[in-house]
């Protein structure tokens, strides 16, 4: 990493640190969302369909596991969206001042990763008080992949749309994808839902939480999805910042 990227990343991190309300929200909101559901759901057993098999789980454990990717996806998506929106004017000036587009893209995605990891850490800290995943490492990896997927999607949406419509899209997309269509309470999900961004990461997450083995292809596909979006996001960001 060259000095200019380091400086840009440090400035971005300083901007984060300068907004304590934002940092507090990124920590408090996961606690609120996951905590509320863990506390309020009935402690009954529910049948979950995971990789075609039915597994019974306590509702509170299911709520903790399930609301983790939902929360991370929503928050990372909004952070990605505004990261793009708020830095666009500054990036244009930096570009004119001699920064290369690749340096801007690297620094911005670095900041997105930091934001995603922060949200993920806060979410995991709450979720793990209510559920003990069978395979913790895979559970963490799946949560990070979900966050990165939606964080980069937020960046893409931020490039294509303005703030107001962008918030609408990032309000609906994680809710519909992760909460409604990747829900293991469903017994008959339409096949096309496997093409949605959250599918493979959440499959991996539920297998890691409630079974003793995971399907490696879910991890590869979820990672592939992140890479694909990263290429798309990088291309769009590169084009946006390549202003003369």
């Amino acid at each position, binding site marked *: 990493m060259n000095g200019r990227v380091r400086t840009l990343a440090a400035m971005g991190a300083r901007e984060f640190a300068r*907004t304590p309300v934002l940092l507090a*929200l990124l920590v408090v909101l996961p606690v609120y969302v996951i905590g509320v559901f863990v506390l*309020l759901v009935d402690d009954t057993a529910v049948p979950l369909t995971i990789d075609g098999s039915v597994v019974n789980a306590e509702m509170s454990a299911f709520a903790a596991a399930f609301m983790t990717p939902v929360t991370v996806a*929503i928050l990372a998506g909004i952070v990605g969206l505004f990261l793009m929106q708020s830095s666009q004017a500054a990036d244009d000036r930096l570009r004119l001042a001699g920064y290369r587009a690749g340096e801007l893209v690297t620094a911005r995605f670095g900041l997105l990763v930091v934001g995603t990891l922060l949200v993920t850490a806060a979410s995991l800290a709450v979720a793990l008080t209510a559920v003990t995943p069978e395979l913790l490492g895979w559970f963490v990896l799946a949560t990070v992949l979900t966050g990165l997927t939606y964080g980069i999607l937020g960046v893409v949406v931020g490039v294509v749309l303005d703030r107001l419509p962008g918030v609408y899209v990032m309000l609906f997309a994680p809710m519909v994808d992760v909460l409604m269509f990747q829900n293991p309470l*469903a017994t008959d999900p339409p096949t096309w839902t496997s093409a949605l961004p959250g599918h493979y990461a959440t499959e991996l997450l539920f297998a890691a939480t409630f079974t003793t083995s995971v399907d490696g292809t879910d991890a590869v596909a979820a990672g592939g999805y992140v890479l694909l979006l990263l290429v798309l996001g990088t291309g769009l960001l590169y084009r946006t910042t390549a202003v003369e």
Partner: protein
Amino acid sequence: MTALGRVGAGVRAGTQSFVREPFNVVLLLVLPALSIQIYGVSLAQFPAVGIFDAAGTLETTGRITGAVFATGALAGVLGLFQMISARHADRRLALCGFPDVELVVSRLLTIAVVGSVIAGVATVTLVAILGEPVSAAPLVFVGLGVAAAAYGLLGILVGTVLPRELEGSLVLVILADVDNVFASGLFGIDESITQFAPLSHPHELVTAAVVDGQLATEHLLPAGGHLLVFAVLSIAAYTYAVGGEPA
């Protein structure tokens, strides 16, 4: 210019700032339809018994949930962004001599006008998509209008307390999403708790109108209570933000 004229100008300006962006108008028309259809399909994938306590079929419940969510979310985000973008302009207008009450009334009426349009579009879309006759469409509009009003006021409140787009959006999006899960009955959370979710009563009002063709009178009072609390809080916060702090 009379007070009525000034309020009218404020409402026109607020409404036009939303309509001026063609993509906003497209979203206003497309999002309710998309949300209603997607929620209908998504709830139909769940087993018919054991998880939900639904008044109608799961598909119908899903579509009602989608309509209520789309209406609330659209109005809420609009209220939030309107408040954030208008804050400084309103502050300057207050300094120029505009009475606070006229500015507050303008903002509330703008939300009422755009919220009514959103509720109207969502009502027409829901009735069209349901594919079964809805005998009480005006009552559906009432339920969705309550959802729009509640979230429009919440948007103003959040936008006043957190006047930055990222922070405000984070809070409003989380509120709307969690509220919608409560209202949908997805986790089977006890009604004694979900009744405090702002969308739960509009959800029940719309459900009663669609399934039974009746007005769920027992939900009118709590829904009105929510509106009153949000109105008082948002007016107090707005008045403080516009007139109470130094320039």
